[in-house]
């Protein structure tokens, strides 16, 4: 498979007044078209920053991002984004929220209305089209947010801990739904999480990052058969993967800060 996203030597330093924060250090990896890649790492290691740089919303200090063999120097057009919180417009119905990107991008309304309705069907929200966000549970709101990210039929889905605020059961449910959508709609997904199990369960590859400054520890291939089922969570192979990742993260955090690189 061809590589769709190429991250090369990306470095990011935040400067706010006197303080400088070294967020990302020489990150390089590739994401194949149609693959599901998760990024795990300790809190504050720069996962969100990396996703923002890949989307073109944030500039890196050095290094390059290439998508479809074009260098990214402005916000990408063919991405959908899902955030940790649903960030829905309180004043719009479910359908109105899902149609927001279509209105922003001035795309054909009628054609996308159809897409929106089929997405609503896909995530099981039929009958809720005219409801407002405050009438929905957290899980339903995140489903709406998922539909909104898909309505323009983007090639790439960037998801930043999308189910992190949900309870474990709802998260499992949405993970399965996401996999179904991904297989059906042939998306390339970059999925940030700090839940190792979730990363292994969903992904073809897991990108493991160290604590700040975020470095790539390993891009681990997950060879579990698809479609994935919740029973796999208790398989020994699954356990080995999660153990391996956990090991990488803990051994990386044992190295004193100075050895990883000064943060000043």
């Amino acid at each position, binding site marked *: 498979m061809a590589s769709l996203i190429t991250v090369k030597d990306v470095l990011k330093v935040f400067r706010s007044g006197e303080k400088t924060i070294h967020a990302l250090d020489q990150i390089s990896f590739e994401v194949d078209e149609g693959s599901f890649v998760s990024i795990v790492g300790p809190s504050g290691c720069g996962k969100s920053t990396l996703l*923002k740089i890949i*989307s073109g*919303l944030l500039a890196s200090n050095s290094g390059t991002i290439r998508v479809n063999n074009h260098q990214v120097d402005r*916000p*990408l*057009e063919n*991405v959908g*984004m899902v*955030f940790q*919180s649903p*960030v829905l*417009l*309180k*004043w719009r119905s479910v359908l109105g929220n899902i149609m*927001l*990107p279509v*209105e*922003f*991008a001035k795309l054909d309304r009628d054609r996308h209305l159809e897409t929106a309705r089929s997405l609503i069907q896909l995530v099981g929200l039929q009958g809720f089209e005219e409801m*407002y*966000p*405050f009438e929905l549970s957290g899980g339903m709101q995140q489903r709406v947010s998922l539909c*909104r990210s898909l309505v*323009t039929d983007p090639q790439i889905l960037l998801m930043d801990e999308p189910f992190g605020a949900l309870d474990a059961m709802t998260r499992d449910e949405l993970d399965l739904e996401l996999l179904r959508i991904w297989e059906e709609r042939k998306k390339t997904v970059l999925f940030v999480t700090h839940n190792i199990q979730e990363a292994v369960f969903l992904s073809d590859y897991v990108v493991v990052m160290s604590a700040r400054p975020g470095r790539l520890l390993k891009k681990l291939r997950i060879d579990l058969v698809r479609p994935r089922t919740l029973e796999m969570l208790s398989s020994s192979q699954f356990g080995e993967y999660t153990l391996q990742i956990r090991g990488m993260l803990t051994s990386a955090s044992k190295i004193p800060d100075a050895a990883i690189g000064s943060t000043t």
Partner: protein
Amino acid sequence: MKSSVKNIAEPLVFFAVLLLLWEFLVRMTDVPDFILPPPRDLYTAFTENLYVITIHSVVTFAEAVGGFALSFILGVGFAISVVYSRHLQNTIYPLIVILYAMPKSALAPLMVIWIGYGMFSKMSIAFLVAFFPIVVNTVVGLKEVEPELLDLARINRASQFDIFTKIRLPNSLPYLFAGVKVALILSVTGAIVAEFVAANQGLGYLIMQALYSLDTALTLVILFILALLSLGLFMAVQVLQRKIAPWSSEVRQVEGSF
């Protein structure tokens, strides 16, 4: 059902008891009428002066609402320009803050000199006190947008116009309504204070007249009328908010508490 009856009955009983207590206290202590008249006197003062009270209420109402309307139009317009222009933010906004720190009612005598004796000088005070809460709330409402929404807008190549009409403006509504409620109450206060300074009509003027003749009962009646006037304006805004922005959390909270 049961609790809603109770919610109406309870305050009614409470106020009835309060009135009885008042009447009882006045009789017991033999306090002179010009200090604290019994509730009966208030009723007579009200019915005897109904016509005068109505006429002066209309004046004060017009001054307050006129001043408020001006502050609404200019305040919202100003807030939008401040949010979109760094120059205004650096120049006029600090000036407004200084003006805000000034006690506006102290400007009332000056306004009489500048604008005159009539309703417009009262309106100008009502405008001045109402302007600031409108501006501040609208500015905050326009600015406090979740950054992720703006990311979403950028990814989808949203126009500035779309970002304004589809995100910022509706986002500011709950803040704006909160500002409007404060501004309305303040504009009534502003009009009254301005009438104290110099006027020949309005409820503020009427209070001064009543006090000259030690008519405490009429003064108290007018105070209650003023409370009702403010309350009525407040409720009207509440109704409007439920119609325009039923999703704003404040409204939901109010509904949930009944």
